[in-house]
């Protein structure tokens, strides 16, 4: 009962502080503090409710328990991280985005291909591509190669569609200007059209960054060596070791956010000229 009162008190306190902070003028400090306070409040409420209602750790472990488990099994978590993120997701991400980028430039060169591939690409980008996972696991074996293949297939079409769209973003006036400079195809591509396409390319890279992690983890449900985040999650659920599952989720969340943040950071330095990056 004490814990429930504690949870309710924390909730009221957090909400009150945030309301006060939100009434202040919007600065960098308040913009950062408010979501952090909100998140901490959520964790405190979670802890309070789990202890107050005595929820079994098999259903929902308390945050303190997850933290303890995290600290105790960093070795396993690191091994899974290397297997899934570095070997599976990252290599697939680089391969898939690189291939999509090159093919997008090729497609852009021929208008016929562009008009044919763009609708098909848009269609495929909306499909449940993750269903390819069992087939690719069958083709490439259980180790990280098949996970990288799933990631390649998942990130390819969003990246392709975005890049092709970006390459056609420069206006007729700008292209005419390049022509008056007697710039050839390659000079126009490198100096005008690729820079103009960067916001679209980074949009594709951001979408792909979240897809890559999902693809690598879900592909492991269809077969994997005895390490990897997806493998650990599915076997630990079977053993009812939910604290370990949550520790893996924490790793996945941190890695996912860091990956996305890194791409966004590079975007800000590369496309500093774009309107969406100003006033920040």
């Amino acid at each position, binding site marked *: 009962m004490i814990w429930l009162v504690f949870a309710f008190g924390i909730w009221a306190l957090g909400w009150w502080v945030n309301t006060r902070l939100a009434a202040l003028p919007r600065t960098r400090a308040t*913009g950062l503090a*408010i979501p952090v306070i909100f998140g901490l409040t959520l964790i405190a409420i979670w802890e309070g409710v789990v202890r107050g209602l005595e929820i079994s750790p098999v259903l929902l472990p308390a945050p303190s328990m997850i933290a303890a488990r995290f600290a105790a099994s960093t070795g396993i978590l690191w091994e899974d991280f290397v297997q899934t993120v570095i070997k599976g997701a990252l290599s697939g991400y680089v391969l898939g985005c690189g291939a999509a980028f090159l093919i997008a430039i090729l497609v852009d060169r021929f208008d016929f*291909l562009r*008009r*044919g591939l763009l609708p*098909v690409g848009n269609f495929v980008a909306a499909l*449940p591509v993750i*269903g390819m996972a069992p087939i690719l696991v069958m083709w490439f074996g259980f180790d990280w190669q098949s996970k990288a293949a799933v990631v390649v297939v998942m990130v390819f079409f969003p990246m392709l569609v975005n890049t092709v769209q970006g390459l056609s973003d420069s206006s007729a006036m700008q292209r005419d200007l390049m022509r008056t400079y007697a710039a050839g195809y390659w000079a126009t591509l490198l100096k005008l059209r690729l820079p103009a396409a960067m916001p679209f390319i980074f949009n594709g890279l951001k979408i792909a960054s979240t897809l890559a992690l999902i693809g690598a983890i*879900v592909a492991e449900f269809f077969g994997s060596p005895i390490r990897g985040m997806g493998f650990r999650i599915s076997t630990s659920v079977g053993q009812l070791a*939910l604290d370990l599952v949550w520790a893996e989720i924490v790793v996945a969340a941190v890695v996912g956010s860091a990956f996305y943040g890194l791409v966004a950071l590079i975007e800000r330095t590369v496309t500093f000229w774009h309107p969406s990056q100003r006033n920040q």
Partner: protein
Amino acid sequence: MRQSVVPVLTVVCGIFLVWYVAAIWLNAPWAYDKATRTGDVLTTQTLIADTWSQEKPKLPAPHQVGAEIWETTVEKKITSKRSLIYHSWVTLSATLLGFGLGTGLGIALAVGIVYNRTMDMSVMPWVIASQTIPILAIAPMIIVVLNAVGISGLLPKAMISMYLSFFPVVVGMVKGLRSPDAMQLDQMRTWNASPSQMFWRLRLPSSMPYLFTSLKIAMAASLVGAIVGELPTGAVAGLGARLLAGSYYGQTIQIWSALIMAAVLAAALVALIGLAQRVTLKRMGMA
């Protein structure tokens, strides 16, 4: 529109061509293996014929998948456990329930975010952060835990669909509800409009184009959620279960037919929303 028909058809034909050639290439080792065991000599013709008609090929040819789909949709009774229509219906019902819940939650959150400054500043960053978490990865846990609490069947799968589909709706609706410019808001104020009138007559109607665009993304995400949600339930029913069962028993044709079915389902659902979008926007005079 018309000028893109020929290129699209060409690309689709190209895909089929690559598919057939890849089927020969991928299935040839097995065909050679079988031939050396029986002592046959394979000519090019018999090799191609064999690679396109194997029982468990590495890559089934399109006509094999087509035949399987025809057999499991038209020739089987809908109530049969082997009917793809039955499995599609299981997945579809979870998709639609999750989509409905997600859309409702998304719109409610968006209204809260637009009208409450505290909510805007505290919830919005977490809504964005929630999507960098690979939620599909915890799908098995959600299913198992909800099962342990006594909730089973449709709802756990729908929860995963809901989690995936609420995000595009929140982002789109927040943008849409904020899309009326200062001039329009001032105009409403000169008419002495109450806040609720402002919402129903100005903000909500002007958010419709944004809503429909988000709904399309949400629907596709919701289907993916339902399919992945079916993986850990032990392959009982649904397209995801067909995928899993197929991968356990090496039934590649079954996997591909489930995959094509899922693609058709996704395309049909998105097209349906597109239709609703066109009708609604036309009646509102926006398109």
